[in-house]
């Protein structure tokens, strides 16, 4: 009963997406949206099915997905760790802060050629670039999250005489959890962008490469098939993450 009630808004949310996609289809059908710009959803759906029907495409998708996951996990964990370490060291933090804030203006993949002379080519530089993209968001969020932990909670931890590790495990991380989750969400989205954009620009495998390849070869159907897959994946991770994150956020009375 209770779960049934709380599921209703989620269902309505999904319904809204369905309705919007339906409208898009209608606009395309009556010619309000030129097919030269974006194809109709039904067309894209067919393209997606065609793409997913090939084992090579599934492999490409899986390859990208795997690396997105690896990058998101490393960036997330690493970002939290770095944030935790930097936070109490005031000087270090003051030194890092301006760079953290302006970090995203520099297109990371400019450094790709320089990077592969160090790392070699293949999937490693792609994963590294994605980590580089995501980790800064995680560090920043961790710092903000730790700032948000109230002074009295930090002091309470001290009064209980916790070891630094206990302090992190039992107080800081749980206290910062709701924000850390939103940071992780950012991390996933950056990992997505990092992996697929790197593949698009300079790789030879993965969904991003397939999109670029199809684009270069005027294979519009395949291209939209892959783009559709990427959007669906993005939507699934976003909504999925929302549902996972909802519980701790609600508990903390946001």
């Amino acid at each position, binding site marked *: 009963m209770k779960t049934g009630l709380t599921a209703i808004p989620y269902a309505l949310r999904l319904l809204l997406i369905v309705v919007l996609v339906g409208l898009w289809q209608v606009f395309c059908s009556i010619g309000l949206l030129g097919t030269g710009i974006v194809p109709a959803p039904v067309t894209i759906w067919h393209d997606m099915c065609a793409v997913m029907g090939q084992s090579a495409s599934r492999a490409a998708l899986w390859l990208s997905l795997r690396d997105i996951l690896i990058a998101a996990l490393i960036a997330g964990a690493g970002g939290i760790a770095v944030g935790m370490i930097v936070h109490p060291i005031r000087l270090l933090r003051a030194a890092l802060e301006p760079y953290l804030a302006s970090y995203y203006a520099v297109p990371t993949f400019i450094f790709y050629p320089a990077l592969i002379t160090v790392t070699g080519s293949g999937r490693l530089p792609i994963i590294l670039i994605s980590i580089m993209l995501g980790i800064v968001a995680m560090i920043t969020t961790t710092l903000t999250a730790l700032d948000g932990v109230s002074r*009295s909670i930090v002091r*309470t931890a001290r*009064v*209980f*005489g916790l070891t630094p590790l206990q302090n992190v495990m039992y*107080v800081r991380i749980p206290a910062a*959890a709701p924000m850390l989750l939103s940071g992780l969400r950012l991390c996933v989205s950056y990992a997505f962008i990092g992996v697929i954009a790197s593949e698009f620009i300079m790789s030879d495998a993965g969904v991003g490469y397939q999109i670029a390849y199809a684009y270069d070869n005027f294979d519009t159907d395949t291209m939209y098939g892959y783009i559709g897959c990427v959007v669906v994946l993005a939507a699934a991770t976003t909504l999925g993450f929302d549902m996972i994150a909802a519980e701790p956020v609600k*508990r*903390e*009375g946001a």
Partner: protein
Amino acid sequence: MTENGQTDVPCVELRQVEQRFTTRKGGNVHALGPLDLTLRRGEFLSIVGPSGCGKSTLLDILSGLARPAAGQALLNGQPIRGVPDGVGIVFQEDASFGWLTVENNIAFGLKRRGLARDDIAARVEHALDFMGLRRFRTSYPSQLSGGMRQRVCIARTLVMRPSLILLDEPFGALDQQTRLLMGDELLRLWRETNATILLITHSLDEAVMLSDRIGVMSARPGRLIKLVETGWPRERDSTVVSSPHYGDLLSEIWAPLRAESNHHMAANNA
């Protein structure tokens, strides 16, 4: 031991303690002192004073959370370095852990200390009853009112059975009637455990009603301008309010405070 249960053995000694802060803009704030104060083992001492006079600062020094800028702070004859064992503190602000249920909040310190499960469970049960939190044991702090949350913090401190309890305006979030009841509970607890209690409060009634001694602090930089012995017996509760001595004590601490406040008001309009 005197007849009211307190001893003459010093538990805490402050000698010419001072505290200063540097503000972010580089200014210097003289927040406290110089201040001399001796807390006798087993006594119940309250501190009252205008807001911002340095009461919380004083507690930070006693609990080892901050080192004084000048002077000495001794616990059982030893200089206080870091948070000493056996000191419990309840902060002025809400310090409940939002990610834990009420019972897990209360058990937190016990678990970290590695007590036996049974022992933890027993102590938590007792604290839940004691603080009137039984119905909320599985609630999260965000589902409680500010007053309830403060009770959780008090319970979390008391289950550790500290021998020195520092309370910073613990009932600030409660309504007056609940404050009175909680005060009675605190007195009972104090008698049962023989702990030394230092209570900081804004409420003169509370200070007069509960304490063996009351310290009155000046406006910032806070110094002790009066130290009043109430002379209540160890067995007492909020009914002392009706004793004639109560009014005398109240006016005895009210006079210097009123002077301080007026002085302050005047200064602010200068």
